[in-house]
């Protein structure tokens, strides 16, 4: 009996031990360091300290949604004691439609999206981008869709991709190389690359040959491969094609009178462009004084091999597969670098579109780690953002006065870009009082990859009319020169990354005295507005100040400020004394806020 009892006893011990072990392990999981932080830790000898709650919320909201957190979000976040609140809010922000609105600007400038393109429906490229981002489509799928696009731009809005370069294989190749492969190969169009001996002029044409089977139909429903492209057919098809064209002309045009032809042209006019795919089209190496040419170039991956193609195979499919394959880390490096520059405040390398063997890569282990994670996350952009923002590295505070700035240990303040600034101004004004739909609580999963990041809410679109904007995405791109957005750096969208973040005197003057600013501060005292509702409760101006501070600056009034504000309210500055609701004071305070260093920076 004794052995049995002993056994039972020991059984209990074992069970207890197991339970204890599991609990401990569970706790270990709970408090496990973010994997990014494990890699990040080695970058700086300075300690990484967290930013204050309100600062972090402002940063998170501006980065993910391009706008300030609402007053309610501010209050709930700062009073939320849960450990995973950053993740909780990040998920909400990423599911918010403003994520798609804001990141469409970021993608728009990479993809050179323009709201109005000839022979394309208004905003169709934007709609493709924003809805892809909204549903958290993988970046890899997006790029594949763009590169292999064909058909009507209306039905397949990704075909806008080829419209931007009018289907010219050389321009497409240069663009694809910079945007997705991270190499500026333009030089090799006319001669072997001067700084890269491994890349010849023929290699350049080898890359362009992947895009040779495409042409853009813009004028007529019945249209053949344009005349200037015919010599890119293999010799034996050239005649065949010309014959086909002749036959068609004979049958449909030759016998018609001028007026009849005109009518026919009108009837067959193409309203929406189509991206055409013609498998037999190739690309001829140009003749030059000093080099032989005229042959059809074989497609060749940059710095890689010549793929074996089946006759008639869509070369773009082959290229897209190669470009987005796991082996091609560059594809991920280039993208992760862009995202990191925005979120972490430094790029691993620059320029963003040219990564050469000479490029100095900083914090390489972190880049490699993120590149790896991005692959495991199946190239889903929201997941990558969520992964980064939940790390302590992201949440680090900015440098204090007197400190030696260390960009790894400190978050380097960023000036708001045009979209962030515009959206924040709209929010600061009294008119956009409708908060966002974030109250719907979402169930939080443990694993980031399992979290549902599909967007919620209907997406806003570029507007035909130039008025009543509530978000920068509603302004047609490229933004008109005379607009607030253009002054603050919204570019022409002709080249990659032509939005600028350079500071100019005009920007400061616009912020001081411009019309958007004026609309914003003048709205402050509106008695139908949001701010007034805070006054109504207790007839206390400080309730309004507080609301304004929380909305515009995402913080509380400091003690010193409180004393000063009291002095302002009781001094000769108080405007008409009888009037207890101090309109002018509010206007002046709001003006000062949108001009303050604090408002204009993410820090």
């Amino acid at each position, binding site marked *: 009996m004794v052995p049995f009892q002993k056994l039972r006893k020991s059984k209990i011990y074992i069970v207890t031990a197991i339970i204890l072990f599991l609990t401990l392990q569970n706790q270990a999981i709970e408090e496990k360091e973010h994997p990014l932080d494990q890699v990040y830790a080695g970058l700086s000898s300075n300690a990484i300290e967290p930013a204050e709650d309100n600062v972090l919320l402002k940063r998170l909201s501006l980065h993910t949604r391009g706008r300030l957190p609402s007053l309610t979000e501010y209050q709930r976040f700062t009073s939320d004691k849960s450990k995973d609140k950053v993740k909780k809010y990040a998920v909400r922000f990423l599911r918010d439609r403003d994520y798609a609105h804001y990141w469409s600007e970021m993608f728009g400038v990479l993809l050179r999206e323009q709201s109005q393109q000839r022979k394309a429906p208004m905003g169709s490229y934007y709609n493709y981008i924003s809805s892809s981002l909204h549903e958290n489509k993988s970046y890899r799928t997006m790029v594949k869709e763009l590169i292999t696009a064909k058909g009507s731009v209306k039905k397949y809005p990704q075909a806008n991709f080829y419209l931007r370069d009018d289907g010219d294989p050389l321009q497409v190749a240069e663009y694809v190389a910079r945007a997705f492969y991270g190499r500026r190969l*333009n030089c090799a169009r006319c001669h072997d690359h001067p700084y890269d001996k491994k890349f010849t002029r023929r290699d350049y044409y080898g890359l362009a040959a992947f895009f040779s089977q495409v042409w853009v139909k813009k004028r007529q429903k019945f249209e053949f491969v344009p005349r200037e492209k015919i010599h890119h057919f293999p010799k034996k098809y050239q005649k065949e094609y010309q014959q086909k064209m002749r036959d068609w002309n004979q049958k449909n045009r030759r016998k018609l009178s001028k007026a009849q032809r005109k009518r026919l042209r009108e009837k067959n006019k193409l309203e929406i462009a189509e991206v055409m795919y013609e498998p037999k089209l190739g690309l001829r190496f140009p003749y030059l004084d000093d080099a032989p040419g005229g042959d059809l170039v074989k497609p060749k991956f940059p710095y890689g091999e010549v793929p074996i193609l089946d006759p008639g195979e869509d070369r773009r499919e082959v290229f897209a597969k190669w470009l987005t394959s796991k082996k091609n880390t560059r594809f991920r490096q280039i993208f992760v670098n862009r995202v990191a520059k925005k979120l972490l405040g430094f790029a691993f390398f620059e*320029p963003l579109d040219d990564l050469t063997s000479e490029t100095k890569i900083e914090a390489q282990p972190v880049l490699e780690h993120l590149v790896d994670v991005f692959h495991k996350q199946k190239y889903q952009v929201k997941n990558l953002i969520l992964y980064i923002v939940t790390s302590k590295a992201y949440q680090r505070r900015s440098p*204090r006065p007197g400190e030696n700035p260390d960009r790894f240990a400190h978050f380097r303040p960023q000036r708001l870009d045009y979209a962030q600034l515009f959206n924040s101004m709209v929010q600061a004004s009294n008119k956009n009082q409708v908060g966002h739909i974030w109250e719907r609580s979402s169930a939080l999963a443990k694993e980031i990859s399992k979290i549902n990041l599909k967007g919620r809410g209907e997406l806003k679109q570029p507007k035909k009319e130039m008025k009543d904007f509530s978000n920068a995405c509603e302004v047609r791109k490229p933004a008109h020169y005379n607009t607030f957005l253009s002054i603050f750096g919204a570019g022409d969208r002709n080249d990659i990354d032509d939005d600028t973040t350079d500071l100019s*005197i005009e920007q400061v*003057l*616009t912020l001081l005295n411009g019309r958007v600013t004026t609309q914003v501060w003048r709205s402050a005292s509106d008695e139908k507005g949001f701010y007034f509702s805070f006054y109504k409760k207790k007839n206390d101006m400080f309730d309004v100040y507080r609301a304004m501070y929380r909305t515009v600056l995402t913080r509380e009034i400091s003690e010193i400020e409180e004393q000063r504000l009291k002095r302002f309210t009781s001094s000769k500055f108080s405007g008409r004394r009888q009037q207890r609701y101090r309109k002018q004071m509010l206007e002046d305070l709001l003006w000062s806020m949108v001009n*303050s*260093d604090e408002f204009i920076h993410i820090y």
Partner: protein
Amino acid sequence: MNLFTSTKNNINRASVLKGLAALGLSPLAPLGKIFATGKNQPESIRIASPVKSVIFLNMAGGMSHVDTLDPKSNGQFGRASTRIRGVSLASTFSKTARELHRISMIRSLSSSQGDHRRAQFLLHTGYDIGAGFPDIPSMGAVIAFAHQKKGPYFPQHITIGGRGNMIGEAGFLGTRFNGYHIGNAERPLSNVEAHRWLSEDRFYRREQLLSMLNQHFSKKVSSNQTEKFKDMHKAAVEFMNSERLQVFDIKKENSRTAARFGESRIGKSLLLAKRLAQAEVPFIEVTVGGFDTHSNNRERLTQITKDLDPAVAALLGELGSSGLLKQTLFILSSEFGRTPNMASNGNGRDHYPRAWTTLIGGGNIQPKQVIGATDQRGEKVIKDKKTVSDQVATIYKAAGIDHGGELTSSFGRPFPLLGKGTPISGLI
């Protein structure tokens, strides 16, 4: 014009300075930080030249040469003689013809770019689009960069009238050399005045509130980025208070001078250009559009030159008689000429890059020279063919820029100011 002295509440400068002091801003602080420019040094591309300012008149759209500066029998206008022997302009430029002896002319420009965007790009850079250098600056930005001045903020590169393409484009030289654009010469500056409702008291309060907020922030965060914004803020306030703002005010001109330039938009733009040249702004570009005369060539040219001709004549006369021409380079050019034959629609002319004419003078440019010539109908250049790059090289040399110089581009690569092109020896 001046923000703080012209408001109806008559705020004086002293109270503003007090306000600025409250902001922690000294209005006289140097702005070195804003103007520091990375690897590029302006001295590296400077050469000796008396020129302090360049006025570039851009006839956008392609000006029909046979109807204007290179009159031919197939032109639609008569001729106007000049004081240079054997040289006449078309009657569209009859007033300018009387001032032509002050400057010179290139009648043999020729290129292969017949597309507006490409040709305008070439005109402003001496490069073809896609020559392997994205992000390159226009010559205006290069000249502004090389002539940049230290001291309180004032724009160095000013564009008036039309814009787009390469006009005012600073490329890798950065926003501060972008053209400060003026759409309407009568209202040249935007946002340099505060809202008209604001009284002195409220100004003061705003400054106090802003300084209160900034003080709070500066105790918490400090970095280059935030400092840069502070500096720019300072520059902006300084610009608002600048005594030199009246340079922009064409109403300050005496009425006789103003009358010579004319009441038209073009006249006012050129008058403003003259004032800016007087103030030694390094590069001033005035773009006059409407030359793309695919139809109604005659009517449209008549209409534009009715305003343009007296204004150009007045500008040349004014620059010449005041002696300003010695330190001001004057150029009038277009991106290409137009077909000598009447083409599309029967009454218009199409793009024709094989021949056109430029007026150039001032500074060290030899006056009264006519470089090159076209054949009887203005169809092709028969003497001294010049490229647009040659023209840019000439402008550079005259403006005190080493046309063979190099800058460092944003990729950290050397960027030659010109790929090809040599200054025209008969001119400079």
